[in-house]
């Protein structure tokens, strides 16, 4: 009996923190995703000179909650000819893989669920790639042609772009020398330079491949509504559909976090080791304070009393966050004796801010592309992947490897490593242009009489 109690205690000590964090992620992530969707709609509206959702709450701030309630109380339809079990399993698999991948990420030095996984970044990539089964099986189980087409396109697309994404990651990992998420960011701190600057071509390759992997526009062919209704999601409704939606946006956050960790310095401030640029620390509190002031200015313009109060609450929240962010910067100035005590607090809070800031910027870029570029045709997508991106990424790994050898030979590190990697990147760019020219020439020689095979 005592043994069991002791084992339980041991278990709790070892696992309660991850358990609580995991539950928090599962509980909070749908809310975050809801607001990402709201932000996306707002950005879309802004780019198209509209207002976007405005009705529920001030500036539509409560729209995600209304949407969630609507989705939850919708009728749950399962087609008669569907494979019931797989139909039930598929969305769960999709969202489960996406959430599990979140566990491997480190949002700041303190916030990581699975502490110090030795194979961290591989874990995130591998587990999030498993989400494809949710899409494929869901498309198959619906027993509908549109769904099956969407599923087939999706798996073909993922297999094609996974290679390019992996090769891009290899470039970053060459600099880091480790797979551990925390150590990767520490390596960037020690080098004093983000790996994205050392390997810009790899960053670009990963960006394109990650858009394709998350099935986002302009590569959203699995759910191209003009051809396939909604692709693999056609037969899904209500809660199941929202699970797919959750998985898609979670995957976006995951790929953005991987890129942030490996290429954009993770939770590090820009120029984190340069003393005379320490004033950048004032940016996070200032930014949130400015947002708060803007909310205050807008408050009198709200039509109803409730909305005014809500706006005030948002402003208050912004000011509270600004105060929390400002405290570790201002305290050492006021009382230098407390500087050491504030240090870990500073690392955690500001690290979290910078990580979320970079992830948001990356996701904003996704959205920007979505509302700017028209959708590709499926054969164009495949050609881009196989004829351009994969050769480019492989050549880039080769060139970056050579640059690393040169760097080790001449003892280059930090910014001086750019001396070796910059020529490599330029060479990769030239080769990329060469590949593009070659590909276009080959395309021009081919007889263009055949109709495009839009069903893959």
């Amino acid at each position, binding site marked *: 009996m005592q043994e069991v109690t002791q*084992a339980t205690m041991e278990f709790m000590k070892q696992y309660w923190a991850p358990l609580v964090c995991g539950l928090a992620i599962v509980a909070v992530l749908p809310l975050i995703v809801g607001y990402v969707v709201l932000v996306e709609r707002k950005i879309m509206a802004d780019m198209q000179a509209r207002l976007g959702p405005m009705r529920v709450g001030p500036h539509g701030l409560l729209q995600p909650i209304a949407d969630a309630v609507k989705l939850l109380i919708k009728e749950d339809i399962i087609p008669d000819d569907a*494979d019931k079990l*797989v139909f039930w399993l598929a969305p769960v698999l999709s969202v489960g893989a996406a959430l599990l991948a979140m566990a491997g990420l480190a949002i700041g030095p303190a916030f990581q669920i699975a502490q110090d*996984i030795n194979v961290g970044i591989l874990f995130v990539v*591998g*587990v999030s790639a498993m989400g494809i089964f949710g899409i*494929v099986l869901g498309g198959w189980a619906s027993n509908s042609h549109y769904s099956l087409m969407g599923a087939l396109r999706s*798996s073909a697309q993922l*297999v094609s772009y996974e290679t390019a994404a992996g090769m891009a990651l290899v470039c970053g990992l060459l600099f880091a020398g480790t797979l551990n998420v925390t150590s990767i960011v520490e390596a960037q701190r020690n080098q004093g330079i983000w790996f994205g600057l050392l390997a810009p071509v790899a960053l670009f390759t990963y960006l394109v491949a990650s858009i394709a992997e998350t099935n986002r526009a302009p590569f959203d062919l699995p759910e191209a509504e003009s051809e396939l209704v909604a692709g693999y999601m056609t037969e899904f409704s209500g809660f199941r559909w929202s699970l797919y939606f959750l998985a898609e946006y979670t995957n976006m956050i995951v790929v953005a976090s991987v890129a942030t960790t490996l290429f954009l310095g993770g939770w590090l401030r820009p120029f984190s080791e340069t003393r005379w640029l320490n004033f950048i620390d004032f940016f996070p509190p200032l930014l949130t304070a400015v947002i708060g002031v803007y909310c205050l200015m807008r408050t009198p313009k709200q039509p109803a009393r409730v909305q005014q109060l809500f706006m005030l609450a948002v402003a208050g929240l912004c000011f509270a966050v600004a105060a929390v962010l400002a405290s570790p910067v201002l305290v050492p100035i006021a009382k230098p004796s407390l500087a050491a005590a504030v240090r870990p607090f500073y690392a955690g809070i500001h690290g979290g801010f910078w990580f979320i800031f970079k992830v948001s910027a990356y996701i904003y870029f996704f959205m920007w592309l979505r509302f700017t570029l028209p959708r590709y045709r499926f054969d164009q997508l495949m050609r881009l992947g196989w004829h351009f991106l994969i050769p480019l990424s492989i050549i880039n790994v080769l060139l970056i490897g050579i640059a690393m050898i040169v760097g080790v030979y001449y003892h280059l590190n930090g910014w001086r490593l750019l001396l070796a990697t910059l020529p490599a990147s330029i060479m990769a760019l030239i080769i990329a242009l060469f590949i593009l020219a070659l590909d276009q020439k080959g395309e021009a020689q081919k007889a263009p009489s055949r109709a495009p095979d839009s069903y893959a």
Partner: protein
Amino acid sequence: MLDQAIFYLFAGVAVVSAILTVTRRNAVHSAIFLITALLATAGIFLELRAEFLFIVQIILYVGGIMVLFVFVIMLVNLDVAVRQLQFARQKWVGLLISLALAAQVGLMLWSSRKIPGQGVPVLNAVPADKLPPNSEEVAKSLFSSYLLPFEIASVLLLVAMIGAVVMAKKRT
């Protein structure tokens, strides 16, 4: 104790889903159970603190090979395949081979049960936090002591890849 419980859980899932893989008539269901079996095996690797093997199993088998499997299952016409007789032809040979394999494994387990530290490796001989980083160790041994076999294997894979490309090209 917890370790053992987790091991038996994973082992049970692996065995049951492996059996279901060969007994299901529907190819997609078989594929799902094969994925489950592979994932359970990956879980056992993780239980043994072989993180690198764990993640390679997931990326390679689950994320790579099984995606292609499912893709092909959906591309080919399964109605024809279901009507054909598929497995049963070599029932006795299969039984014989699996019995021989089971006897081998059983003999190994039986003969090594009395000598600790030899034959079957003892679980948790080293505390988990004292273990050297897993992927680094794999890389070191691959690129130092086993460099030649590693290179031969990669050349073999390259040959297979080029062969596949050549065969695919010939048809068009």
